[in-house]
């Protein structure tokens, strides 16, 4: 009985916060646009029979008829993947340095990583607008140094989106990697070095594989929200930055087409969930093969 309750809690959580919202969105994606409140039909008030009869996959077919959606998905995947890679490259050394720092410093360092969250996310993104604009701090500073002759255009380009995403999600990369490195047994590195590894080899052959779980967790935490990101591209990005979050916004707000917007969201979810499930399975199989 206790075991049942223990299992029931996470499943109830999944049901309430994932499955039910998903079913609602999926249902809307099978509906038709209507000029009413809410702006789609059918709704359950119409009766069960006609309700189910009116649902169809028309909106998903529509998505294939215009290459905008395909391009937006691909462009979002690319932006999310590149940002995740940059975040990893920046975050790993920071996490590594934190884990190697003297024990008494670590809580302070940890605090410093979390500190930016005390300011509203929106304000931090706005601050970047001030830093990156033509008359912004960065350009002023570079001009003063004499590195550049005239201000660089960074704001309203895809570069600014990368900067925004990397900045915003960096703590989500650092913390899991730090957690993994913190637990790492230092004697393993010593053993590797005793057995003839150079420091670099020991890092590559011992530290990296042992922090793999942290890297994977961090990458997921960055990649998944970055893929559907809307605020950062709309504030920092230019009109040429095509991302699925923006397409979704336009379907929802400009076209008032909730059914098509929901279809876009369902596909986005599938793009995320299927690789994650496959990855999990692969991990499990590997784990089983090792034991």
């Amino acid at each position, binding site marked *: 009985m206790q075991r049942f309750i223990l299992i029931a809690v996470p499943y109830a959580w999944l049901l309430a916060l994932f499955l039910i919202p998903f079913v609602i969105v999926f249902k809307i994606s099978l509906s038709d646009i209507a*000029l009413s*409140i809410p702006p789609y039909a059918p709704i359950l008030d119409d009766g069960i029979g006609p309700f189910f009869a009116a649902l169809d996959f028309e909106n998903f077919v529509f998505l294939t008829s215009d290459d905008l959606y395909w391009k937006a998905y691909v462009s979002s995947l690319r932006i999310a993947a590149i940002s995740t890679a940059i975040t990893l490259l920046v975050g790993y050394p920071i996490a590594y340095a934190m884990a190697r720092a003297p024990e008494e410093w670590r809580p302070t360092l940890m605090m410093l990583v979390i500190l930016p969250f005390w300011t509203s996310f929106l304000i931090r993104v706005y601050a970047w607008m001030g830093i990156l604009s033509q008359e912004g701090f960065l350009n002023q500073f570079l001009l003063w140094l004499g590195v550049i002759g005239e201000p660089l255009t960074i704001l309203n380009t895809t570069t600014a989106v990368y900067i925004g995403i990397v900045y915003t999600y960096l703590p989500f990369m650092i913390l899991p990697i730090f957690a993994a490195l913190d637990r790492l047994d230092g004697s393993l590195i010593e053993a590797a070095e005793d057995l003839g590894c150079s420091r670099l080899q020991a890092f590559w052959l011992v530290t990296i594989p042992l922090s793999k779980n942290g890297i994977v967790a961090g990458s997921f935490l960055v990649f998944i929200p970055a893929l559907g990101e809307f605020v950062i591209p709309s504030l920092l990005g230019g009109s040429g930055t095509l991302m699925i979050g923006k397409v979704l916004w336009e379907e929802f*707000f400009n*076209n*008032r087409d909730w059914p098509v917007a929901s279809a876009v969201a369902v596909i986005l979810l599938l793009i995320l969930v299927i690789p994650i499930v496959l990855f999990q399975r692969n991990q499990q199989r590997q784990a089983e093969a090792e034991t």
Partner: protein
Amino acid sequence: MKKLMLSCAAMALCTMSAVADEVRVYNWSDYIDEALLEKFEAETGIDLVYDVFDSNEVLETKMLAGGSGYDVVVPTGTFLQRQISAGAFQKLDKSQLPNLENMWATIEERTAQYDPGNEYSINYMWGTTGIGANVGKVQELLGADAPLGSLNLIFDPASMEKLSECGVHFLDAPTEMIPAALKYIGEDPDSHDPEVIAKAEEVFMGVRPYVQKFHSSEYINALANGDICVAFGWSGDILQARDRAAEADNGVEIVYNAPSEGALMWFDQMAIPADAPNPEAAHAFLNFIMDAENMAAASNYVYYANGNEASKPFLEEDVIGDTAIYPDEATLQNLYTVTPYPAKVQRVVTRLWTKIKSGT
């Protein structure tokens, strides 16, 4: 017994005033003199919660989702019309609005095309969509005879290429930009024919590389600070930029011109959502706004013309005397209005707009 009844009545009154003591208003950003909000609270004793938005699309989505919690909202005419047919608004109770007699019949006639009989809404402000320019910078780049008041300035690629040096913003509002482009090539700006609308694409494709940003509110500050030199935007917003620049005394001189080819005339209408929690307080707010002096104070502050005839004597000379705000008869003849797109055409318009903005 009598005493008991009295206390009941008192209680009923108490609960009523508890309900009636808050009104939630959702209006455009930078669109009212905030002193008016305090005045309303002081006069009526009703608490005012005031939120702002910067696009009709955001407001419309809230209205269509239902349960927005707002008592007064301010959609533009075309959007209002569609939301009325979706059942988003309640009819005004005109007995609670004695100040309706202040309204301007000429404007009411025009708003009736969106809201027949003006049964659901009152006019708050109206204006035109046109060109704001930093005179000094534009003349430096294009010469002293730069066409500041013509669509040529923003739709001619040669002129835009030069202007891109100092920065140009366009409104991120396809329902205003596409009619302007159609007007520029001599088509009917209110066309709902997808083939005609498609012709706007060519106009934009020629100039889009030179547009720094498509945005519907940033241009006020950007113009005033001198970050950009041309914006295609809403009349009063550009006039606000002009005044902010003048106040800052930063050497930036802004002018607004309604395009000589013809300008879009729009009406922002105050309406009460069907599910407003407190329609009584909403009516009190509308009536307060329609007071001649209050309406004049709002116009004096935001530099938009209002639909209130009685407010005219209270308007400052730089508002009522400015033809950019209260156009003369000739300009008035040159203004056009548009009607809402049906869903299918709206999809074509949005798709076209995405293509214009992103290149795909």
